[in-house]
């Protein structure tokens, strides 16, 4: 037996997304990255689907170069500001939908106990916490298929109250909307409405069976038609392939969001994806960069799962295309301490600001 040091694995092995295509050579990768730089910075044009597919296959060694271009693109298209947001699960658990990644589904036996809509005072207290952390946006999130009339009344009461008492822009995430509900929420002062596509249309039935991808796309369309900003996110690491991630990027382009929160799967006990491997840190950086290169003008927000996925590379994500983050805790899980994020932004000399889509 050799007495030389052997590599050891300290963490569960991450599961990379599968692809039938081989990685590019180093020379081809340099050429593809340079071509993307010229397209987005000099010609100021969007990349084609073929160009994005090529960039998705640069070798791991080229990911830092890809990330560097994505950072330049973010600065050129969006500016240096970073938008900070706090989120609150105002109604937790008991959701009738079966999103396989979610600990709040009533279909799965998870440790999360269902709790009713929080009192107004509790929502206001959380919004004030958010404002004190330097955030400009506060999102009220409900674990529901869609809002019933009682929920609509509560939201329409809460949104102006939170805005007036804290000065924060107020976002809402309450599932699938009817046209009438979208109209009322917009009229009621909802600044941004969150409704994630989560994954590619072709993969969606593998992770959700209680509603269709098209229902999500319809709600996204209604949000925009009624004048709210659309926040439409993704969740990577559920077993989708590279091609399906590229398909998702095309889907996101089609719904034209103002903001894209980028989540990485944090496997939740009791859910069908509870034992899934987490996305590797460098793979996460690759996809942050690709999201920025595919969606150069969006607010690209660090969302759930970044702590366990990126670990020490969280700072690298900020220079790979990210220009917004959720500060503090998530809906049912904890984030890293807000002062760590704020110190990271200070160290990077990235100012905190309010962002809107650049047209």
């Amino acid at each position, binding site marked *: 037996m050799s007495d030389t040091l052997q590599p050891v694995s300290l963490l569960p092995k991450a599961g990379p997304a599968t692809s039938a295509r081989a990685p590019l050579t180093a020379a081809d990768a340099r050429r593809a990255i340079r071509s993307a730089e010229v397209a987005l910075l000099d010609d100021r044009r969007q990349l084609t689907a073929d160009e994005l597919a090529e960039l998705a296959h640069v070798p791991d060694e080229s990911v830092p170069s890809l990330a560097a271009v994505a950072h330049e693109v973010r600065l050129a298209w969006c500016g240096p500001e970073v938008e900070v947001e*706090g*989120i*609150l*699960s105002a109604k*937790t658990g008991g959701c009738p939908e079966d999103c396989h990644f979610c600990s709040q589904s009533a279909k799965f036996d998870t*440790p*999360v*106990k269902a*709790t009713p809509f*929080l009192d107004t005072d*509790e929502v206001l*207290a*959380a919004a004030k*916490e*958010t404002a*004190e*952390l330097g*955030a400009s946006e506060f999102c009220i999130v409900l674990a529901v298929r869609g809002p019933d009339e009682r929920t609509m009344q509560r939201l329409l009461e809460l949104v102006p109250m939170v805005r007036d008492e804290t000065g924060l822009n107020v976002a809402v995430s309450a599932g699938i909307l009817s046209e009438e509900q979208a109209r009322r929420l917009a009229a009621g002062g909802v600044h941004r409405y969150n409704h994630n596509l989560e994954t590619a249309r072709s993969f969606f039935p593998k992770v959700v069976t209680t509603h269709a991808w098209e229902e999500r796309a319809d709600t996204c369309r209604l949000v925009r038609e009624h004048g709210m900003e659309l926040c439409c996110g993704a969740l990577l690491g559920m077993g989708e392939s590279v091609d399906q991630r590229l398909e998702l990027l095309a889907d996101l382009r089609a719904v034209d969001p103002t903001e894209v929160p980028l989540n990485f799967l*944090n496997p939740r*006990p009791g859910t069908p994806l509870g034992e899934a491997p987490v996305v590797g840190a460098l793979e996460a950086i690759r996809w942050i960069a690709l999201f920025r290169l595919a969606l150069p003008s969006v607010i690209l927000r660090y969302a759930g799962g970044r*702590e*366990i996925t990126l670990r020490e590379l969280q700072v690298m994500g900020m220079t790979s295309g990210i220009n917004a983050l959720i*500060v*503090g*805790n*998530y*809906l*049912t*899980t*904890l*984030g*890293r301490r*807000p002062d760590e994020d704020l110190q990271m932004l200070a160290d990077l000399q990235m100012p905190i600001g309010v962002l809107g889509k650049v047209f």
Partner: protein
Amino acid sequence: MDETVPADPAGASRCTGCGEPLTACPGCGRELDPPRFCGLCGTRLAVRVSPGGWRARCKQHGDLV
């Protein structure tokens, strides 16, 4: 009944991740998860997570901090 008890109190006999006795589960709670079960009695907790903190309440033992 205590109104406020530590999330991981001295004398805890239950895993705060799954509620099982510590003899059966020495602790499966993950690093960035708040407690989900009372460490004293194993009852599922009502947990409110907010941007700046969390609060958990046990029907038997009140608020946990």
